[in-house]
């Protein structure tokens, strides 16, 4: 039984480890730290497979969000903030196959490329650096409200690109 279990986990690892590692590395910029997050995320899934509710979204998207959150916690040297069971992720595209993810990633990069630079920058600082809107406002010298709006409208632009298939 145990060896069968481990092969199931290995299969999931083979399918999703490149996404998890890429997200962790993007946030942390350090291969050793990214590897630690990769290990932690899959161990969490192993210990608590029921935390992911498949009725509510794709495993690929959920792992991406869990990984990003864990990597930000590591970057900011704080204890993990959210219980993974509380994280429900709803996303339109099916991200199970590598080809689907590659197509989605290309589309995302297209949307990011067409965003005004300050908006893309605010969105990426919030997402990949875990900066609060006030930290971003301090750094850029722009009003808080502007930063908030840029972050939300940046996320909405991504959503819009995937609506309707």
């Amino acid at each position: 039984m145990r060896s069968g279990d481990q092969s199931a986990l290995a299969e999931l690892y083979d399918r999703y480890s490149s996404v998890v590692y890429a997200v962790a590395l993007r946030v942390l910029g350090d291969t050793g730290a990214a590897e630690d997050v990769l290990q932690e995320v899959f161990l969490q899934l192993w210990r608590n497979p029921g935390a992911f509710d498949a009725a509510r979204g794709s495993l690929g998207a959920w792992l991406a969000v869990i990984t990003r959150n864990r990597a930000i916690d590591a970057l900011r040297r704080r204890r993990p903030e959210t219980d993974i069971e509380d994280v429900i992720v709803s996303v339109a595209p099916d991200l199970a196959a590598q080809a689907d993810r590659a197509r989605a990633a290309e589309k995302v990069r297209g949307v990011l490329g067409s965003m005004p630079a300050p908006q893309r920058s605010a969105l990426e600082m919030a997402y990949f650096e875990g900066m609060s809107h006030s930290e971003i406002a301090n750094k850029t010298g722009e009003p808080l409200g502007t930063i908030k709006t840029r972050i939300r409208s940046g996320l909405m632009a991504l959503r819009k690109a995937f609506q309707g298939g």
Partner: protein
Amino acid sequence: MTEHEQFAEDLALYALNTLEGEDRAHLEKHLATCTSCRMELEQLRGDGALLALSAVGPRPPQRARQRLLDAVAKEAAPTLSQKTRDDGAPTAVGTRRSWWGVLGWAATAAVLVLAASLWKENAALRQDVSSLRSLFGQQTVELEQARSVASAITNPAGERFTLVAVKTPPQPQGKAFYLRNRSNLVFVANNLPALPPQKAYELWLIPAQGAPIPAGVFKPDAHGSATVVNPPLPAGTEAKAFAITVENEAGATAPTMPIIMMGTGE
């Protein structure tokens, strides 16, 4: 500005875990009671997941895979106590997953067969925790299959075909699938009339006793089609019927008459 608009930008920050202090506490209080904001939060996290996909880089080193498998092998065989949460509730694989939540009428027959076999397996699982792990991989594959079935119903791009007796003009129709012991509800409707501005349809669970319970606020698409999947419902409520009213966009806590559609269990 409505209450939801007021929270919209904070909700995006919250989805990224960067909202702090009073704003966070204030929003969490609102989220506890607002279904539409909770659903928007899930969507915003999904938008963030898309952003995460833009990260590209090298594949993880080969040793990372072995490190994980070694760590997993070292962990003691799972025991019942390890698989039990602090509150004593079992967290067995499958008990938390909402198999019935992905039911849609177009695929009822196919999924029923799948769900019945899994239900049986899940019952056996509770008796045999050691088999949990091996089922994990299999269920993940099957869950992904079930998701693809669900997406045929819930994806906005999905095409809908409603079959009725020939020469019958299109009628508004709704179908609710409800699994009481798991509080799972899937509702699918079509041919719904367009709504006035600022209004939405609200689905109600009419319990055997007591007041109607809100079961989701929704707006039909341009073709009059709509879907509600797993709205928050009190556990184990017996449903006598489901009903639909027209309410303000934010939804209501008690139905505003008249009831425009209603159906009892078949």
